[in-house]
Each structure stands twice: as structure tokens, then as C-alpha cells.
């Protein structure tokens, strides 16, 4: 069996190997330090095992070789041996499986003992005992690992999880007909390298980071979000290390079309305290919003802590106002003067209305240039005017300081926020990596190890019931150098992931206490984007072919040299270019307008459409985030959703008309017409119909043909019948949920 490789890791191994050749680690006797500070003089011999059971083999003075758990080494020593640790995804996945199975077994026995002791429990009433007995029995059922998925189930789930949509007919056929024993691992690799992965992860981060048109909370109509969107997609596509990605979001400066990562700070323009809360929530799974106004009631976070943290970002300005260099064009001309000149040119040429003296685009252009992230050198964070604790005075300035993790020496950094970013992404930050792996685990398994993901408790080992697994994932993420692709590669290669979805709903207590131990992933409703993108996959052979490319022209238009726009025609041409760049998508270099669509709907992937879509759009109805708050998407049902599926244009025209892709190209375009029902089932549900379903589809919906019909009429009637089958399949719960 071919082992899937990890590109990034193999290069690390290579580097480590070179080092090894030059200066063999083996020969080196050094002082080893454990996580709790004990030391030992020993020679490095090698490593054994993987993941949590990985050990480092150390030769001590008397020549004996001891095995010491890598997890118990100090951070520094762990890094020292890192290149020698196993990084094969299959081995790491096996380690996850082992930890999950151990925990399931342990919980099972624990529950069994509790059940046995229940009748004798004096502090429970008989009713309470009955209730508890039911709970225990239910939980015991959830301690038995589920069956492994069959190929159809796996196929559908892995496409949805990695590429964000169901497989097309061709993709489904190719996988199901593949006889290679390692075809699942191969498919995982293929999907991680597909554009679908970038789009799917964009949807995730778009919700997390609140990426929206106009970028700021209230939406700056002139500020294009396109460069920021593309930056997120590119980070995923190119597998930028996650820690580096976060660092860039926190430290980027300049204008969005030049430094797209400034989008993160511009999003919270004018709300620097909210931005700090958001940074903690998003990147550290820590809710400190309370401490903005008073000491946190549940955690050891004081209002002073909040303001000391906020002070790290206190020099950041997201809007350049007034004069200074920021307002000057490269040629030195003042924007305002140039704009006044151009207004006059337009007025003189009769291009403004009789009552109008200013062209709005020109004013907007200035406003757009103001939107940039700069470090002012002045710390704007002060204690609030009603600060009432003893450790500070109202309105007093605050010095940046951390309240957990490392202390930062500001003198070593150019700006305080550089120090802050360093602190956030440091391997020594106890929340940063945990937060990432907890969130990514939830993407794959439908439920995090610690819920809610935005509020990981300070003392984790008491709260996360599978603490061993969580800390294994944390270590693994570090060992994988924060490669998001490699991290998911391991998760998706695990048997735990490849088991059938759980048929029971984890109870709220289980969610709250973290006692759901993953006999398989949780059954989830697709996200709004997964539903939409799956519908897109049903209307085209290549769902990723249309991409939003407006960002390419945006930079040129924004950086125009105004002195080159001399005549009214020059100015109008530039305005037109701007207007075109504002259109949603460019496809093969052409602007695609809103009118380009399939059967009345713009069937492009959600990541390429307006962010977010208008509130009455299908995507919003099914829970696409309004991008106002972190993770504001929802997957609960509603009547408008059902009405859209029953009576809306997507299921009644786009997917089911005789001209629809599924009918014309798949049912009638591929192979024998007799297999039409098979083909439609495979396209929509990624499985073939049972014989009962097939005969129902064929007889119940038999096309009303008769002898007097000509061929064309018969085909038309058959197409109608196929449309009915498609309609019925898209309306099933089986379509909406990810098994």
C-alpha cells in the first residue's frame, strides 16, 4: 500500500536528515529537561511509537537506554527531537483511533459500574433512578464504536467535508469503480489539493472572521472585500501554516488591495475593544467580552487584564484621517485638490447633472484610500471613564501586558502588536493550538472535544473528558508545523472519522461535559454553503470553474495616477473600469453579470458569490451567516426552507427542467436510458437506489407516453418524470444530512 505523503513534513525530515549527517544527534550528550523542570544528562538514541505513546530513547551515563515519553519533555526538547517523530498520517490516525477506543471502553465500563450501583444509591428518588438508568443505557449505546462506512457513505461525506459539496456523477463513478485498496487515502489527498478545499475552508473562515462586502461592520460600500477573500483562499490553497496566517492577520498594515490581511482589523474599525474580544474568541477560544465592562464573573479575568491586553493593539489605527503622508498620492499631489480639479473637468464637460457639482465616485475614492491600517505610535487605549476597581484610575493610560502565557519584552519588537501576535501564536500559548485543533476537529466530526468552542475553560484537564486525545492533537498540530492540510489529512484517514455517523443525538449533558466520545462522527445537517454548493454540483460538470476574480483589477484602479486622467472621457473610462471591477465575478477574464445564470439562479459556489447573500436568498434561508458575528451561521430548520425546497425555482426549474444539466447531460447523456434512475440517485445521494426505490421511481413516476407520441414527445415526458425523481431526492432528509 502506498503511504500518503506529507509534503511539508518530508521537507522537514530532509532538513533534519541533513543536520543529522553533519552533526549526528546520536552522538550528542546534552541536558534534557522535562515539562515539569527536571533535568537529565543523556545521549539521544532515537524515537519509537507515535503520537501520545511516542518515546524518546535516551542513553544515560551508565550506558542503559531508557524510554522517556516525548509528551513529557519540555517544549524546547520536544522541538529538538521533532524531526525524528513519525509523521505518517496513517500512523498518527491510528494513534487517534487508539485514544478514542480506549476512552470509549473506559466510559463503557464506568457507566456499567454506575448502572450496577444505581439501585443502592440512597440520594436518588425512584423516579430519578429510572431517569438516570435511561440516560446511562443511552450513553452506553454511544460507547460502542459504529461500523465503518461503506464506500458510498465515505465518498459523500469526504467530498462534503473536504471539498464542501457532494461528488458529481463522474467523480462518484470514478471512486466507486476504483479497485485500489488505498483509494480512500488517495481521494483524501486529491480533495485536499483541490480548489474545492480552498472554497470550503474559505466558507469556514468567512463565518469565523466575518468576511463581508464592504468589510467594516456597517459596510463601507467602496471597500472591496475581494483581495481579503482571495488571501484566505490562497492561504488554504497553498497550505500556509496556520500560525503564520494568524500572525499576518494581526500584524498586516497598509491598504486592503496591497496587504489583504488588513481585512481582519478593518472589519472591526472603530471598535478596538470588540476586536480584542474577537481575537480571543476566534484564535484562543476564550470569551473575555465580559471583562470589557467588569471583572469576568466566571473566570479569573479582571477588567484590568482586558485593558492591558487591549493596550497591545492600542497603536493600531484602521482609518487614516486628516492630512499627513497617508493622504498624499505617490506623486505628491493632495487627493482633495486632484478631486476638485476632476469635478471641474466633469462639470465643464456637462457630465454632471444641472444641480450637481461633485461626482460621488471621486469622493468615495478618497474615502477608500483612507481605509488603511497604520501604527500611529500613540497608544489610544485608556481605562474606561467609569473604571471603579482599586488598581487603576478612570481614563488612565494602560501599559500592554499579558495575563496568562508568556510575559513579553516589548523592547524586542518594532510595535507592541508585533509582540502581541508573537504571544498569540507562540507554542507556549496554552490556548492557541488547543483552540485550533478543537475547532478543526469540529469541522470533521460535527462536534468539538470542548464545547462551546468559543469558551474553552481555563483548566482544561478537568473539563475535556478526553484530555489525552486533545493534547495529542495539540502536539500533533505543532509537529505538523501547523499545516492545516496535513492536520485534516490525519483526521480524515482515521477510522474514527471513517465510521458511520452516530444515530443518536448526544445529550446536552454529554455536549456540555464533553462525554460524547466519538463512536463515529455526529450526524449533521449540511451547512448552508454545503447545500448550495451541492446544488451547484448538480448543475455543472465542473462546480469550481467560476471564480471571483474582481480583485485582480482592483489594485490597478485604486492606484491610478489621477494626473493621467486629464479629460472628462479619461475620468469616465476610469469610473467605468471601477464599476466593472465591482461586479461580482470574472470568469475567464470576462465580467459575469448578475444576469448570467442557470434557469434564473446564479449557480456558482457560495464562496464566489456576494458575502453574505441578501437575506431572502436560499443560502441565508438555510443559515448562511450574516457575517455580523463570529460563527453566526445556523443549521436549524424553518418553514421558509421547506417551502423553498418544495416550491422554489431551484428544485422546480434549475434542477428538473428538461434542459437541466442532470436531466439532459446525466440522465440522457450518459449510457443507457434504462439506468436513468440509477444515474440520478448516484448524482443526488451518491448511492444507487434499492430495487424497491427503483421500481417505485419507474412505475410510480412512469412517463405518460402513448403510442401516438413521437420520439421527441416521449423524451419530453421521460424528462418530466426524471425531474420528479430529482425533486423528490433533493427533498429527502438523506440529501440534507451528512451521514
Amino acid at each position, binding site marked *: 500500500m502506498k503511504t500518503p505523503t506529507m509534503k511539508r513534513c518530508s521537507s522537514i525530515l530532509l532538513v533534519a536528515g541533513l543536520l543529522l549527517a553533519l552533526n549526528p544527534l546520536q552522538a550528542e550528550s546534552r541536558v534534557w529537561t522535562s515539562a515539569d523542570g527536571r533535568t537529565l544528562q543523556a545521549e539521544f538514541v532515537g524515537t519509537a511509537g507515535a503520537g501520545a505513546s511516542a518515546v524518546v530513547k535516551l542513553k544515560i551515563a551508565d550506558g542503559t537506554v531508557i524510554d522517556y515519553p516525548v509528551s513529557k519533555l519540555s517544549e524546547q526538547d520536544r522541538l529538538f527531537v521533532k524531526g525524528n517523530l513519525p509523521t505518517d498520517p496513517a500512523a498518527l490516525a491510528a494513534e487517534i483511533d487508539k485514544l478514542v477506543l480506549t476512552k470509549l471502553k473506559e466510559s463503557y465500563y464506568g457507566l456499567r459500574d454506575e448502572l450496577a450501583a444505581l439501585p443502592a444509591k440512597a440520594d436518588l428518588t425512584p423516579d430519578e433512578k429510572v431517569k438516570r438508568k435511561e440516560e446511562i443505557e443511552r450513553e452506553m449505546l454511544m460507547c460502542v464504536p459504529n461500523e465503518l462506512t461503506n464506500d458510498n457513505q465515505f465518498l459523500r461525506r469526504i467530498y462534503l467535508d473536504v471539498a464542501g459539496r457532494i461528488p458529481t456523477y463522474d467523480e462518484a463513478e470514478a471512486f466507486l469503480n476504483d479497485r485500489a485498496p488505498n483509494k480512500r487515502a488517495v481521494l483524501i489527498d486529491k480533495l485536499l489539493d483541490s480548489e474545492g478545499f480552498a472554497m470550503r475552508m474559505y466558507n469556514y473562515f468567512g463565518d469565523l472572521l466575518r468576511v463581508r462586502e464592504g468589510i467594516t*461592520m*456597517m459596510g463601507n460600500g467602496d471597500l472591496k472585500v475581494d483581495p481579503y477573500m482571495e488571501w484566505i483562499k490562497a492561504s488554504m490553497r497553498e497550505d500556509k501554516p496556520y500560525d503564520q496566517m494568524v500572525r499576518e492577520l494581526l500584524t498586516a498594515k497598509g491598504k486592503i488591495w496591497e496587504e489583504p490581511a488588513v481585512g481582519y482589523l478593518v*472589519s472591526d474599525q472603530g*471598535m478596538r475593544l*470588540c476586536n480584542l474580544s*474577537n481575537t480571543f474568541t476566534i484564535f484562543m477560544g476564550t*470569551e473575555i*467580552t465580559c471583562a470589557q465592562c467588569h*471583572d469576568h*464573573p*466566571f473566570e*479569573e479575568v479582571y477588567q484590568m487584564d482586558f485593558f492591558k491586553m487591549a493596550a497591545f493593539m492600542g497603536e493600531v489605527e484602521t482609518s487614516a484621517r486628516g492630512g499627513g503622508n497617508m493622504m498624499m498620492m505617490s506623486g505628491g499631489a493632495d487627493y482633495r485638490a486632484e478631486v476638485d480639479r476632476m469635478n471641474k473637468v466633469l462639470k465643464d464637460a456637462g457630465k454632471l*447633472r444641472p*444641480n*450637481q*457639482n*461633485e461626482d*460621488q465616485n471621486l469622493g468615495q475614492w478618497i474615502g477608500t484610500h483612507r481605509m488603511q491600517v497604520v501604527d500611529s505610535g500613540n497608544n489610544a487605549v485608556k481605562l474606561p471613564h467609569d473604571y471603579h476597581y482599586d488598581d487603576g484610575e478612570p481614563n488612565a493610560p494602560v501599559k500592554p501586558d499579558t495575563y496568562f502565557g508568556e510575559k513579553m519584552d516589548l523592547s524586542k519588537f518594532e510595535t507592541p502588536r508585533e509582540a502581541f501576535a508573537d504571544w498569540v501564536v507562540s507554542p507556549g500559548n496554552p490556548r492557541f493550538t488547543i483552540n485550533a485543533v478543537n475547532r478543526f476537529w469540529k469541522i470533521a466530526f460535527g462536534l468539538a472535544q470542548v*464545547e462551546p*468552542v468559543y*469558551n474553552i475553560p481555563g483548566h482544561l484537564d478537568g473539563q475535556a473528558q478526553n484530555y489525552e486525545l486533545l493534547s495529542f492533537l495539540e502536539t500533533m498540530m505543532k509537529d505538523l508545523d501547523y499545516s492545516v492540510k496535513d492536520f485534516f489529512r490525519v483526521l480524515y484517514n482515521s477510522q474514527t472519522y471513517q465510521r458511520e*455517523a452516530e*444515530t*443518536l*443525538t448526544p445529550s*446536552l449533558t454529554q*455536549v*456540555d461535559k464533553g462525554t460524547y466520545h466519538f463512536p463515529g462522527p455526529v*450526524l449533521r*445537517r449540511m451547512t448552508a454553503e454545503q447545500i448550495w454548493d451541492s446544488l451547484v454540483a448538480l448543475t455543472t460538470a465542473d462546480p469550481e470553474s467560476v471564480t471571483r476574480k474582481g480583485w485582480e483589477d482592483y489594485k490597478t484602479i485604486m492606484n491610478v495616477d489621477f494626473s493621467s486622467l486629464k479629460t472628462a472621457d479619461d475620468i469616465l473610462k476610469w469610473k467605468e473600469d471601477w464599476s466593472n471591477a465591482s461586479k461580482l465575478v470574472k470568469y475567464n477574464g470576462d465580467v459575469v453579470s448578475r444576469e448570467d445564470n442557470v434557469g434564473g439562479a446564479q449557480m456558482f459556489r457560495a464562496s464566489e458569490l456576494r458575502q453574505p*447573500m*441578501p*437575506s431572502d436568498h436560499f443560502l441565508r434561508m438555510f443559515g448562511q451567516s*450574516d457575517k455580523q*458575528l463570529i460563527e*453566526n451561521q445556523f443549521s*436549524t*430548520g424553518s*418553514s*421558509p426552507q*421547506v*417551502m*423553498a425546497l*418544495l*416550491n*422554489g425555482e431551484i428544485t422546480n426549474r434549475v434542477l428538473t427542467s428538461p434542459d437541466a444539466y442532470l436531466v439532459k447531460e446525466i440522465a440522457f447523456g450518459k449510457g443507457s436510458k434504462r439506468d436513468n434512475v440509477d444515474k440520478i440517485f448516484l448524482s443526488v445521494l451518491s448511492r444507487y437506489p*434499492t430495487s424497491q*426505490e427503483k421500481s417505485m421511481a419507474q412505475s*410510480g*413516476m412512469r412517463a405518460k407516453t402513448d403510442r401516438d407520441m413521437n420520439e421527441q414527445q416521449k423524451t419530453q415526458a421521460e424528462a418530466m418524470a426524471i425531474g*420528479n*425523481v430529482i*425533486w423528490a*431526492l433533493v*427533498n*429527502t*432528509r*438523506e440529501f440534507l*444530512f451528512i*451521514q
Partner: protein
Amino acid sequence: MKDALNRLDQLSRRQFVARAAKTALGVSILPIGAAKPLRAAGGGKAEHVIFFYMSGGMTHMETFDPKPGTETGGATKGIDTGVAGVQLAEFMPELAKRFKDIAVIRSMTQKTGDHRGGAYWMRTSYEPRATIIHPSMGPWAQTLLGKKHDTLPDSVVIGGGGEHPGAGFFGPALAPLPIGDPDKGVQNARPFEGVGEDLFDKRLDLMNTFDESFRRKFQTDEVKAYTQFYEETLKLMKSEDLETFDLMKEKDYDQKVQRYGNTRVGKGAMLAKRLVSSGVRFVEVVSGGWDMHNDLWSAMPQTGGQLDQALASLIDDLKADGLFEKTLICVGTEFGRTPVINVNGGRDHHPRVFSTMFAGGGISGGQVYGASDEKGIAVKENPVEAKDFNATIAYAMGLDLNKVIYAPSGRPFLVAGHTRDPKTDQIITEGHPIMPLFS
């Protein structure tokens, strides 16, 4: 102190974590029937509210606060109301005739001049924050009073865009039902064109057959909730409730369109009246066109005239049906417009002072509350903020202004904004109803 707080709040922490977990799993929102009111209504007469939201920033000087003959008043003339010394702008002739039924606020003031921020503040009483969405008034009323009708939604927004705060942290189950075009009613409520009843039923049979094994295997709360939504929706499609949203079913439709105006705001008012008559509690009618940076005086006859006509007809019809006393009509907007006329013959954003209007629902008409200065630039007396505007609506409805509601994140909120009592450190309401309106 900290320890005491910790203990005290253990329970609420449990609760909010549990609620958050529910949201995470998406199991909480099954269709909700009418609930018992949380508390008895406390004095308000307004069982229903029709809120006209004038999007874009309604000019105060061309509607409810004209300044004819002044340097900033522009070409706008005043028109007598029958109350000595009180004029409305010439674009509001019908409302001027009905002035004894309406109350005008001329001392509204806002803290921001951006559309979305101002609109958010007006609808929620709170400043926009990047960490929470505050609910709008309809969902507040449902939370504080319970659901009004078994099957009809409590709140409806007609003609709104994508920027409505909706139910905010109360969650999507309480979100106002959006209706884009009053003539079209609820989106997708009828079978698609060409899909007859037989075909529709056959398709449903197919769906149920294909889905049978999945539903048998996965009896999770979420799957069951969806199946229930299908059942409820199919019932709704056949029920009379749906007709409530069908403006075409309105008696004397053509004649009414004539009176209300064949416009979005006119038909919005017609539909709002129809919904309120059937038992919907809170209807917001959104109408745009007010962002008059250019050529204000060419736009006003149409935009202002449409509003005037719609409001006047609504008042007449509510009175004829005996609904006026229990239906509060209000007109709000994000801000006013600059008294100084700009280079393009328009007025720009002006949050410092602007006007709103109330009628019905226990409001005593024929009065003006507050005043702007002579030029219409600043508040001269009795400033009214968004939170006071909403406190007035809440008071008219009998909502408890001091009831603290906790968001899932554990943060406390009140219907008309909140502050802390400096003496007791208690959370108290910040908005105050305009009491003279109720005398």
C-alpha cells in the same frame, strides 16, 4: 467577592453553556406554538404595532418640522394643521388634515450619521457592537409577552433589506418573517407554476419512499425536527393563514390600492393592516428613497406624497374597523438631513436633530413633543433618543421596561437599552417613554 460571584453564577453559567450547546447542535428550534405570556401586560393599549421605517434618513424639514421662510428652510412651504401655531410641511397634506390623530416628535437625536449604524440604533436601542446582535422590537415583544397567535408569526418585516437585526441573540426562531413584495406575499408558499395538486402529491409520495430508510435509521432530534417542519409547512400551504399574506384576497383590492397608492409603501401599509387584523403583533414596513443628497425638491413630492397617502388611508381604515385604539402606528428613520443645502441641491446626513411620528395605540393626537432650533440644526428642548423612542413603543405595548433578559453569552439586556444604577449597581432601563404622548 470574586468567589462569591463565581458561586452565584454557577447556575447561569450552566444555563448559558447548555443553551450554547443547543445552538451548536441545532436541536432547539422546533416549531413553537403559542406560549403563555411571561407576565400580564402592564397598561399598554397597543396590541399591535405598525412601524414605518423610512430608510435613508427622512428629511425632517420637508415632513414634520418645516421651517418656511428661513435661510435653511429651502423652498418648502408649511401647511396648517388646525392646531394653532403648528404646521407640517406641504408634502404632508393628508396627515395635516388628520393632525388631531397624530403626535409628532421634533427633537429626535442620534449619535451616528452612518445609515446602517443609525438604523441599527433605531431598531434596537443599542449601539452596534461586533460581539452581539441586539434584537429588534417585534422579537422583544414576543419574548416579553409570549406568542400572540397560534400559527401566524409574531413579527413581519415588509420590504426590508438584508440589514435588519431581526431577532438578534434571541435566535432565528423568533426572527420576523420577511416579505419582499407585498403583492407576492410569502415567498414560495404555493406550488410552483405548472405543478398541479396530483403531481405535487405524487412527488411527496416519492420523497417519503426514498427517505424512509434514512429516517428509520437516524432518529435524531434534528432529523425529526425537519420532518416536522415538512408536515407543518404542508399544513400551512393548505391553511387559511396563508391567505392572510395574500393581498390579492383583500376585499375591494383595486379601490384600496387607489386610496393607499400603488406604491411599495402604500401596498405595504395595506398588507400591514391585513396582517394586524388577523392577529400579527408587530409589522414593520420599510420604505426607501429618503437619502436625498441630490435634487431633494424633485424627489419630495413623490417620496413624501406616497408616505402621506399611505399613512392617512391606514389611519382611516383602522378607525373604521375599530382597530385604531389598539394599533400603534409609528414612523422612524435613522437620522434627519442637513439644514444647509449642499452643492448638489440636496441635504446630507444630519443625526443631531430629526423628526418621528406616532398615532393610535393609546397616543393622544394633535400634539408636538420637543422642538428643534430655528434653523433645524439642533435640539432646542426635550431631546429624544432611539432608546426613548423604543421605550415609548414598549410602554404603549405594555412591555416591562425593566425586565432583564440574558443573551446566550450571559450578557444582560433590556428592551429599551440599559445602564447601571450608580448607587445600587443594578441594571436598569436607559430609555424612557415619552409620557406626555399618553395623557
